[in-house]
């Protein structure tokens, strides 16, 4: 589809509209009803992930030659926005699988790796996860210390990884570890199966939001990884990690757009009940003005996200464009959710409405896959280059 325009005069192509409609139906009918309960009980949405796989949502970043649909970033964003509008925990699970695992494997992996692993990913038999962060390396990702030591044809990995989304539910991880001393060029990427000896799930985080998505430590103790599981060349890990995040950020931007849309929908429904005798809005100017501002920005940042996704689908480098999309969308998601809490009054602070969950889920979008200050840094460097 890369040769056909995806967005013409700001409208999605018919193919993308179809994906959007399908994702919206799935999200509203199947994902939304249990979202509050899953959040409260911290239940992983295993059944929904299976359904998502049936709908083809887990194979969108997998090339057609390996059984995927190779739909690309924009299709992924369109789908993710819809799912996230109903449940951010379900959304991030799909986003990580597609953007942070399948996407780099498709781009940097060997034919052998793809042939071995993609068949398990296409239908969701295995979910993928991404292991970059450590206790002492968050925004400063290159400070990671997890070691990869050569042992004949194999590598031996050692050291805990932190903040791993889908950590306890994934079948396979892309792990970034230090194979050499150079801060940047000493990092390599490895495919590590959950069932490799020495892999274990550490502490599960107790979090503010996305509580149905397990965030865990992944402990690697003398994990023997075959040399054939090195992704790309030795020492390319950091550039693979960053390039992957450029794409992942689009998934998070889409998540933020979905949360913003859901918050706006809540406000709209709340205000729609308040009409005067002539059927005109009788809600306060304040609430109408807030709604108007949010709607305008949502449209604007959706375009920003689509633009970056299209560039990425063309194979162009999208560091700053992707950063802009995540920066703006994630801020909006938080503003919109806080506005929903605010405007819904006492109901906004209890689970009578979805606002209190949206405001908790929104908060992570400004943090993970590169905090907002990192996005600003990326944009500023590019503008000043």
């Amino acid at each position, binding site marked *: 589809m890369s040769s056909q325009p995806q967005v013409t005069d700001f409208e999605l192509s018919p193919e993308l509209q179809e994906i959007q409609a399908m994702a919206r139906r799935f999200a509203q009918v199947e994902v939304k009803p249990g979202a509050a309960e899953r959040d*409260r009980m911290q239940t992983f949405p295993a059944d929904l992930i299976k359904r998502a796989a049936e709908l083809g949502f887990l194979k969108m970043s997998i090339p057609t030659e390996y059984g995927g649909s190779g739909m690309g970033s924009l299709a992924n964003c369109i789908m993710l926005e819809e799912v996230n509008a109903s449940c951010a925990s379900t959304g991030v699970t799909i986003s990580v699988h597609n953007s942070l695992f399948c996407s780099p494997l498709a781009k940097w992996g060997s034919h052998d790796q793809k042939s071995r692993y993609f068949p398990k990913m296409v239908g969701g038999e295995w979910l993928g996860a991404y292991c970059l*962060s450590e206790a*002492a390396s*968050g*925004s*400063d990702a290159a*400070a990671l210390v997890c070691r990869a030591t050569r042992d004949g044809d194999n590598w031996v990995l050692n050291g805990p990884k*932190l*903040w791993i989304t889908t950590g306890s539910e994934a079948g396979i991880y892309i792990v970034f570890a230090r194979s050499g001393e150079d801060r940047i060029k000493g990092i390599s990427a490895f495919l590590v199966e959950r069932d490799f000896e020495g892999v274990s799930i550490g502490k599960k*985080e*107790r*979090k*503010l*939001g996305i509580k149905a998505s397990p965030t865990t430590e992944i402990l690697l103790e003398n994990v023997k990884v075959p040399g054939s599981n090195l992704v790309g060349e030795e020492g390319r890990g950091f550039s693979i990690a960053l390039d992957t995040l450029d794409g992942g950020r689009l998934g998070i931007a889409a998540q933020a757009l979905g949360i913003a849309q859901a918050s706006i929908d809540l406000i709209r429904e709340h205000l729609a009940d308040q009409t005067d005798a002539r059927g005109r809005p009788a809600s*306060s100017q*304040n*609430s109408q003005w807030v709604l108007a501002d949010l709607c305008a920005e949502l449209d604007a940042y959706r375009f920003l996200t689509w633009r970056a996704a299209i560039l990425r689908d063309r194979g162009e480098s999208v560091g700053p464009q992707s950063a802009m999309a995540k920066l703006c969308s994630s801020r909006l998601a*938080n503003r919109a959710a*806080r506005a929903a*809490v*605010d*405007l819904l*009054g*006492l*109901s*906004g*602070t*209890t*689970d*009578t409405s979805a606002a*209190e969950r949206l*405001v*908790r889920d929104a*908060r*992570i979008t*400004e*943090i*993970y896959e590169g*905090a*907002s*200050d990192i996005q*600003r840094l990326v944009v500023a460097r590019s503008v000043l280059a």
Partner: protein
Amino acid sequence: METDNFQLSEEQAMILDTVRKFAQEKVEPKALDNDEHSVFVRDNLDGLAELGMLGIPLSEDSGGAEMGWLSLVVALEELAKVCGSTARLLLSQTALCGLALEGNEVVEGVAGGDKLAAFVGPDSEIKASINGDGFVLDGCAEHVTAALEADIVVAAAKTMEGENILCCLPAESVGRESVTTLGFRATAPGRIRFEGVAVSVDALVARGSDADAALQRVQIAARISAGAIALGIAEAATAAASRYSKERIAFGKPLAQQQAVALKISDCISATVAARHMVYHAARLLDSDRDASAAAAMAKLAGVKAAIQAGDEGIQILGGYGFVVEYHVERHYRDGMTLANLEGGTESLRMNVVS
């Protein structure tokens, strides 16, 4: 950010010391767990009662200590630094229920902590219909502090004719349901349903202009008190962010040396200092019997703004650590946002400033 710049009296300084010690020794250790598992902080209220810190601003006739609203502000601020729920419960028991019941015989039990009370304010728009000498109440209050554990419910309601009434009911007479709340989860929050609840003449605390005056007093005092809680939350979140930024090393130096981080903390400090001025000023107006209505609205607005800003930026500075419960900032953020909607939402308070 020392409070001694803010010219507290010796009595107030004593209260500050007492409550700070209690907060740090008794309240803080269990705060995280109480919030996470919605454990009601009744023991903290009892502890405050033992220290004589429960009826601080209430009159001596009511069983209070008559030490003024600034004294309560100082106490709430200290408690909120470690546990918003405990501060919230103290506010509810004192500035809402205790004050509303002043002059009523029940008040001593409330001021002393023997009777736990829950307050349903005018925000909930409970309807009262005349029923003989008494009334019948209908309606639903969505988010009431201590609803599930209270012995008595102090409720405001309005008749079709627009008359306000204030009554005190046994908790068994109303419907109570558990709700999950965004913040203040350790206050036993609940929904209270009034479905044809009868109010006898005995249960009536005030009506007409007496009820108007009582509700007005409660509104002002509760807003100042809420501002104080917000202030404590803002300080705690700012302090947590500041501490973390000095310890955490990234890109070869402490986070605090990143200008972007330092500026966020700076803005939180400015917002917090502004809020403290507003809250203390409003409390002093009230303590000197001057009109504190607009000042109280501004105090709560400034406090809540600082609390949400500090909670939000605190989470951002801590990054992943800000998003997990162990670092407390996510709790401060939730409590701050929740506070914004209690005792008058932001929109109505902003209107109060100009009206």
